[in-house]
């Protein structure tokens, strides 16, 4: 067994354990600084991840349960980046969490380890276990503000619906196992002529997809999203938006293309319908929102829909587009939530009106939030545009064989047009709202400025110089079989 393959996961768990231990010897008033230490530790792991050798032939460990390939490494780096951003953001958020801030950091790091294992999952047991590690830590993270009703409500909602989705997943896995007699993706793929005829097997895969659909907040499994996004502490929301969603997508890609490649190709209608409905639902429901986190919750549903376009395309370029889009989404969403944390700290709420006069209070924050909204709206020269461009390209590539894909592209266009309205509503609140209740300048700490700057550079880099990252994404997507 080749344990060196999961060296990154081991390092991350060690960082988590170290944080837990250091908590014992740190004075209470300095505990919030442990977050920086955690971020630095993960930063080292991230740097190390670039030196991890990857071969074009996937390597496996734990009897084939764990696979190490370009796709896994891409997602692991994505998760590491996301968690570093979230930890720095949590330090800023620490004063609003009454107790146990170091547990907050530790749990985030453990959730990260779950995500990283998920990126390497090559067996349904692995899918379930790694996903539960992520989900259970998120139950705690979302309800971390014990004295705030909204946070507790968010936690309970997430717990109930998350448990439901886990039940779907387990039930699906049981059906799949019952028919194919195996949990390993490669065994299941090898028995395709047996499984393709079985409706029970298809039902099992459908249940698995339902369970994963909860994670990415795709229609019709999106109900929990707005409430949980609004109620949860902002760093946890940001982590949900990028980490949990990316976990769902890597698992969907793995299950579809490693376990049931033939079945996936016959389900294009299902994926097309899901993508179209998710885009429309997310965008239409976001229109009347006044709470920024709730707005971003619906926007995250819409973005799940755009990402589903890549699944619906059922092609290598579709998967590449998903990876690229997630990379851009990471920088965009981290920037947005960082600014929202800083603004809501002084305003005490997350209403859009609290952005009034932000340009006078802190031009840098105003600029950062504007850029992230523009990127979410998919306007060049930012990351969101190039990601959407790749997704649309993947969809239209399929249109020559099946013209309903034009319709799907049309729905995406309508979705983007709707989304312009609410994203520009945010920008309007920043620059030209009439009432400016509060004009005190907003102070930002060094690490926060660093995160914001990294987010801005990331958005611009992915939008203007896509070549390098696109090649990496293509390489990663090529690890799957189509």
């Amino acid at each position: 067994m080749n344990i060196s393959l999961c060296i990154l996961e081991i390092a991350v768990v060690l960082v988590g354990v170290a944080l837990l231990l250091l908590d014992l010897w740190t004075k209470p008033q300095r505990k919030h600084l442990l977050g920086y230490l955690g971020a630095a530790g993960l930063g080292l792991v991230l740097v190390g991840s670039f030196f991890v050798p990857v071969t074009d032939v996937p390597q496996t460990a734990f009897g084939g349960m764990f696979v190490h390939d370009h796709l896994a490494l891409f997602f692991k780096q994505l998760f590491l980046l996301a968690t570093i951003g979230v930890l720095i953001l949590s330090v800023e958020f620490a004063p609003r969490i009454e107790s146990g801030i170091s547990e907050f950091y530790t749990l985030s790091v453990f959730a990260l380890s779950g995500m990283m294992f998920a990126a390497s999952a090559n067996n349904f047991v692995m899918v379930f276990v790694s996903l539960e590690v992520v989900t259970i830590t998120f139950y705690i993270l979302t309800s971390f503000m014990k004295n705030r009703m909204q946070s507790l409500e968010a936690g309970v909602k997430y717990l109930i619906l998350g448990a439901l989705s886990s039940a779907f997943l387990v039930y699906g896995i049981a059906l799949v196992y019952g028919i194919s007699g195996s949990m390993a993706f490669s065994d299941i793929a090898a028995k395709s002529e047996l499984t393709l005829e079985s409706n029970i097997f298809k039902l099992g895969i459908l249940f698995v997809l339902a369970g994963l659909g909860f994670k990415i907040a795709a229609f019709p499994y999106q109900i929990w999203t707005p409430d949980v996004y609004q109620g949860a502490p902002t760093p946890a929301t940001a982590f949900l938006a990028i980490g949990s969603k990316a976990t769902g997508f890597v698992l969907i890609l793995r299950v579809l293309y490693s376990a049931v490649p033939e079945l996936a190709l016959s389900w294009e209608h299902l994926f097309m319908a899901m993508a179209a409905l998710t885009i429309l639902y997310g965008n239409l429901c976001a229109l009347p929102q006044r709470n920024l986190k709730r707005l971003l919750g619906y926007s995250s549903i819409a973005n799940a829909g755009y990402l589903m376009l890549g699944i619906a395309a059922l092609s290598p370029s579709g998967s590449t587009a998903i990876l690229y889009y997630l990379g851009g989404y990471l920088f965009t969403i981290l920037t947005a939530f960082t600014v929202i944390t800083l603004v809501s700290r002084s305003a005490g709420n997350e209403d859009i009106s609290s952005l009034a006069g932000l340009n006078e209070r802190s031009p840098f924050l105003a600029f950062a939030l504007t850029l992230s909204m523009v990127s979410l709206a998919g306007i060049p020269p930012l990351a969101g545009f190039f990601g959407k461009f790749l997704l649309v390209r993947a969809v239209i590539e399929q249109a020559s064989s099946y013209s309903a894909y034009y319709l799907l592209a049309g729905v995406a266009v309508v979705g983007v047009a709707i989304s312009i309205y609410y994203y520009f509503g945010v920008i309007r609140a920043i620059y030209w709202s009439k009432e400016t209740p509060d004009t005190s300048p907003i102070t930002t700490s060094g690490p926060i400025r660093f995160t914001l700057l990294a987010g801005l550079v990331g958005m611009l880099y992915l939008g203007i110089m896509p070549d390098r990252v696109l090649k990496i994404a293509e390489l990663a997507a090529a690890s799957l079989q189509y």
Partner: protein
Amino acid sequence: MSLLSFIIATPLIAAIGLLFVPRGYSYLYQIIARGAAGITFLLSLGMFLFYPQMASGPGGFKFYQKVAWVESIGINYQVGVDGINVGLILMGAAVALAASFACWGINRRERDFYFLFLVMVGGILGAFASLDVFFFYFFHELALVPTFIMIGVWGRGEDRNYATFKITIYLTIGAMLALVGLVALYVQSGAQTFDMIELTNHVKENPIPVDQQKVIFPLLLFGFGILVSLWPLHTWAPVGYGAAPTPAAMLHAGVLKKFGLYGLIRLAIPMVPEGIRAWLEVFCFLALGNILYCGWVAMRQKDLNFLIGNSSVAHMGMAFIGIASLSLIGITGAVAIMVAHGLLAALSFGLSGYLYHEKGSVEISQLGGLLQKIPFIGVCLVIAMLAGCGVPGFANFAGEILVLFGAWESLPWFVVAGAWGALIIGAVYCLRAIRNILHGALSEENSQFNDASTLTTKFPFLVLVILLVIFGVYPRLLTDRVSQSVEPLINQANDTTAQIVAPSAALLGQNTPTAVRVDF
């Protein structure tokens, strides 16, 4: 580096340079913006004049440059000019220069304003210079977003929030539809490149299947059409221009709007000619809607800005008809109209902006007898209105007459009749505007109007009027360049048709560059 890249880069570099000027030096912002626009204009003028002497690069394009950008999916930074866009770039640079001198009433957040202005200019010129489909779209969006922000922040009137949202949503839908069409073109051609030259050559050998052409063309028609204010999707234009600050209205109505027409000529004609023929009835019907309906609406306007806005929508119909004629003379005329109307629209919006700055409103009923008070502005307005109704001697006449000839050659009689009718409608509202604004008694409250007295205030109008007259008196300067480059496009369109529709006809040598007559 090619001269063309300098033309695109000058405003963009100046924009970045502006960010390093500390706040409070408003005159410095102005100097930088005007200087950059001036350099851009001189370079474009040089490029236009020396165009015939230059050696051609790939695909007959001059001042050509190519830099690989995203290799894996075939995106290159690629610029070059032929006869079609060399005039458009000159026109764009001239309008940008004029607009940089027409920034009256911009008195807050000046640095941001000039930054957006310069980005918009760079984006516009880049869009017209690009020979790569991706960059073509990219530069257009780069120019579009500043327009929205400029209307939102520096716009005027009660309705500016409404106008901002309306123009943003309409134009975004248009741009996205066009993007879907462009990507479809890329995918269906099978060329695996966004390079326009290679794409066109590839399609010449392997035409896109007819059923795909019939899907792609409407995407391009309605996508680009919304951007050009194709009836009935034009309603954003009068509202948007009514609320826009003067320089933004000049640049958008004058130059950026022509992007859609340019896209149809450059991409749709050579690559999806069968799509055009299949949709020709719809195309002509909508273009007539532009000419007649919007002309009619313009007659009823009480506000000078809305009158100009609607008449500019109506003029676009003429360009559409020129394109629909699919004939050498018609398309050459369409390009001439694009250049002429760009100058004219910028001139009209500039004048209207001047009047607004003086009085705070351009309600026609509140103006009157102004020619006595402001002779210079008045004469410019007369010129603009006469050019607008197609009086010979101005560039618009040259374009419109060519389009009429082209339509006569290959379109049904009622399209020609409709286009003729438009000239009458145009004359009605233009002459009526001259009478109501400039003639008659000067009322008490209008007696404090000031004429453009200094050279800097006169300058923007002078630039535009001079170019309008030059291209009007000597249109060959433009049309010789244009028709040379339009010819291969038309040939390709007809060859493609011959290849697909009747391979035997091609053998008999019937693929001559005349347009195919279409019977309704």
